[in-house]
Each structure stands twice: as structure tokens, then as C-alpha cells.
């Protein structure tokens, strides 16, 4: 009788301990997963040097251009990222003009960092004009909240300096976001200086 009672108590203790272990393990797994998510988010938005504002009057939101470093050697690929803030507006398309010195760097490629948008780049030799449109099937809201918007890849050509500038307007082309009410939004723009040594 006494022996049976002791066995029952041992059994209960065992199940309690097992339940606690499962709970602790689940919590551990959950925390690790969350941390992993944060890492991915941080990777999507690498740190970018503070931009120089070109035009700031009557503007909403911003577009900043930057790179992880500002010095490269000839032949190296230069990855630049444009970060966007649409100041709360739901965006359905945007246009960008990016000017650079074609004697110092050469444009290679533009990649959208936002899944819902497809980019149509046009290399005009000394500037890049880019139109991005939201996938017709995408119904989700796309508010740019300091997110990486576009990755521009250049290759360093010869020694020298160039400022990669997001221009507000050139010929008939302009830099703007378009919101879901088909209104143009003109953001504050920036530039980034690159040296090829």
C-alpha cells in the first residue's frame, strides 16, 4: 500500500517535470525563432550613412541613397541601396531618376527589394531612369516605412569621384511616388559620394 502510494507520487512528479520541460523548451524555441526573424529584418535594411538633402521644401516622405562603404577599387561592384519612406501613404508605383558620372562608374542592374513591385530601369548613359509598378494581383497595402526599396548595382570603372544623386526632375521625367488615389507624392531626396581609388 505504502509502496503503491510512493510510486503514484513519483509518477505525478515525473509528469509534472516532463510538462515543465516541454513548456521551457517551447518557450526557448519561440524566443529563438523570434530572434531569427529580427535578424532577417535587420539584414533587409543595412545601415546607410546619413544622406545629404537636396530639396526639402514642400516634400513628403524621403528617398535616401547610400552604400555600406564609400571607397572602391576599379573593377569592384558597388551595391547601393535606396531606402524609402512614403509618410503613411499606400503606394502603387514610383519613378526615380538617379544621376551619376558614367566616366567613373557604370550601371549594371537594379533590383526591387519589395516583392510586390517590378522595376523597369532605363540606362540613359549619364543617368538612370526607373519606373516601378505594383503587381496587379497584390492587394496588400504597401506603405514604405524606412524600407529598402531598390538595390542599384554599379561597377567601378576608373579612379575618381562621383556623386550618385536622386534628381527631382530631368527633361520630362520626375522622381515621385504614386499613391492609391493616383496622386503624385514628391519625397525629400538625397545623394551619396563615392570614391574610386
Amino acid at each position, binding site marked *: 500500500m505504502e509502496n503503491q502510494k510512493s510510486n503514484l507520487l*513519483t509518477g505525478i*512528479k*515525473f509528469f509534472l*517535470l*516532463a510538462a515543465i*520541460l*516541454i513548456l521551457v*523548451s517551447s518557450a526557448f*524555441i519561440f524566443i*529563438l*525563432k523570434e530572434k*531569427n526573424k529580427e535578424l532577417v529584418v535587420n539584414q533587409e535594411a543595412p545601415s546607410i550613412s546619413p544622406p545629404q538633402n537636396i530639396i526639402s521644401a514642400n516634400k513628403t516622405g524621403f528617398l535616401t541613397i547610400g552604400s555600406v562603404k564609400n571607397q572602391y577599387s576599379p573593377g569592384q561592384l558597388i551595391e547601393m541601396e535606396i531606402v524609402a519612406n512614403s509618410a503613411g501613404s499606400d503606394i*502603387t*508605383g*514610383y*519613378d526615380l531618376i538617379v544621376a551619376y558620372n558614367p566616366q567613373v562608374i557604370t550601371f549594371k542592374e537594379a533590383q526591387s527589394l519589395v516583392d510586390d513591385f*517590378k522595376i*523597369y530601369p*532605363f540606362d540613359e548613359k549619364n543617368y538612370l*531612369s526607373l*519606373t*516601378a*509598378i*505594383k*503587381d*496587379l*494581383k497584390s492587394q496588400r497595402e504597401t506603405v514604405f516605412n524606412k524600407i529598402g526599396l531598390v538595390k542599384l548595382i554599379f561597377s567601378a570603372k576608373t579612379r575618381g569621384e562621383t556623386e550618385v544623386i536622386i534628381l527631382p526632375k530631368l*527633361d*520630362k*521625367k*520626375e522622381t*515621385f511616388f*504614386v*499613391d*492609391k*488615389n*493616383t496622386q*503624385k507624392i514628391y519625397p525629400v531626396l538625397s545623394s551619396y559620394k563615392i570614391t574610386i581609388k
Partner: protein
Amino acid sequence: MLKNRQILFLIFLTGFLLITFFIQTFFIKKPKIFKSKASETANLILSSNKSSVSQGEDFTITVKVSPSANFAIQAYKVYLTFNRNDVLIKDSGITYLRGDPSTNLGAHDNTSITSINAGTGTATINLIGEIQSIAGLTLTANTAIPLVEVTFVARTNQRIEIGSTSQSKLIKINSDYTLTDLPLSVTSFVLNQPATPIPTPTQASGGVSLNLKLKFQGIMQPPARSNQRTMPVKIKVGGGNLTQPITVSANFSFTTNRNSDTNPYIWQGSVNLPPSVSPGNNYYLLVKGPKHIQKRICTNSPSETSPGSYRCFSGQIQLQSGVNNLDFSRIYLLAGDIPVSGGQDGVVNSLDTSYIRNNLGKTDSGVLAIADLNLDGKLDTQDWSLVIAALSVRADEE
């Protein structure tokens, strides 16, 4: 105290949970989600061997489809409508050119003609064809493939309209062999259409006037609304003896003429040029439609191998005193620069695409006046596809 066996079990359990987590996190690749391609569309095209018929005369309507991309179909369902007061189906008048009639799905064939012709008013012909091979019928992008022919007998000398309904569709075979419905555009073919009067230019003696034929991208069907049958077009004349280009505008009218069944309809318009344009050589024209990219044209009768590929630099147009007939109907005026904020900006950009996206499905006249590029009376994925195609050209030619 826990027994050794139980402790071992607990250690095993904990280890199992941790190993499962690490395997799941680092070794098991998450399945890739493949997004489907941009919207595939298909136009339904109705063509006839005759544009006008007399009472008792027969004519044949050919039902064709022209897809926006290459894909295969397993079946098609096309519902043709006609007015029994105007026409009747001729005996043995239904011919399936592709696939077999799927009678268990309600397809009409030659055995159904008597019942369809019975009665008065509107009748519908269910043209439902099934492709028997597993691979289906392969459709090629922008190529019209005939599916069915229907021969009618006219009962009137007046206007006759053969139309299709919005239920018409293709049954598309996907890459994973699943089937998807692809709606077909609503269209119609009109016989005995009263001709739109083309204004004839009257020009003072010695003056130069132009009689132009133009072809606008995407207008494969007669305009759905009567107010879409004229279009204002801006024409800039440069070169020749002009120190700077001069701009005139003219209304162009829809005509039922076209170069082939798979070509857009031709629009015609005339304009008198100001006295500063004198007869001579080496002129060029810049032509801009109301929702289109400006095109530079340098010869009296230009042509191109693929839509929108014509380019020119030096003006070679010869203008004579009086009326000059210039046939630009063998090159496309690409659509895309729509007047979103009251005017065109000379560029196809995200403002144009966003306007169509944000107004998709609308049929109100204000929206149609701005962005109904194919003039089918609604803003849909076909207009979207046209503006996306125009992104490859992007800006007005100067």
C-alpha cells in the same frame, strides 16, 4: 527520487525537441512559393468575309482568339449572340475548326441550328470546343487562331451585329497541368455599318493639307461607345523649309478598314497646314494620340516589322500643294501616355500604370476618356497590358 529510466526519458525528450528545432531551422528548406506570371489575357476576335450584305446573302463569321502570352488551352467556350430578326444561321453553318463540340457541356453544332433559329429576337450560339489531345491547343502570343466559323444568312439590308457575351472564356492548361478559366473580351462585328463621314479638307490654292491614316495600338474592335469614334490627335510638322516645328490638331475618325484581321482598325483624319508650311521635301511629322506616345515619322508611307519598332531621324516626307495622302497605318502608335492630371506628360510612367490599376473595372465615362486604351468600354487588364508594353518605349519621340 526519479528512477534512472525516467531521467533518461526526460533527457531523451529534451534532446529530441532541441534536435528537431535545429533540423527544422537550419536544414529543412522552406518550400519556394512560385508567383504566377503577370496577368495573361486573351482577346476574342470576330471577323467576317464581308463587311456589308444584302437580304438573302450569306456571310461567315470567324471566331478567333489572340492571347497576350504563349500558353495551351484544353477547351474554349464562346457564346455568340445575334438578332433572329436580322440574320439566321445557315444550314450546316457551324464548323468547329479547332477541337470537337462538347455536347455534354451544351455545345451547339449543326444539329442545333433549327432550334437556335426558331423564334424571334436575340439568340445565343454556344460554341464549346474541347481539344482532345492531352497537350491541348498551343496558342502563340499576339497571334489570332481561328476556332469556329459560323455562316449566317442576312434577313435585312440594315445594320447587323454579331456579338459575344462576357461568359466566353478559354480553359487554360497551367504548367502543373491544372486548368484555369481565362475570360475572353466581349466583342462584336457589325455589318452594313453606316460609314463615318471623313471630313475632306478644303484648302486655299497653293496651301498644303494632310489626309492621314493612323493605327492605334490595341484597338482591335470597333469602339464600344459612340463617343469613342473620334480621337483628337496632335500633329507637329518639322523639317522642310520650317525654322521651327509647327503644331496643328485634328479629329480622327474610326473606319472599319484594317490591314489584316489581326491588325488594329485604321483611323482617318484631315488637317489644313498653316501657310508657313509650303510645298517641299524633307519634312517629318510628330504624331501624338490622346493616350499615346508621340511618334516621329519621316516618310510618306512608313512600315515596320514588329509593333512600335519604326524609328527615323531625317525627314524625307514630300509635301505637295493641295491634299497629301499619307498612309501611316502600317506602323503602330503605342498607347500609354494617358492624360491623368488633365494632360499628358510625354512619358509612360508609374502615374499612368497606377491610374489604370486604381480604376480597374470602372466603366464611367470620365475614367474611360482617360484610360480606356482599347476602347472596349471598360478599364481592364487589357488596358493594363497595353500600358506595360509601352514602358519599353517610355517617352515621346522628338
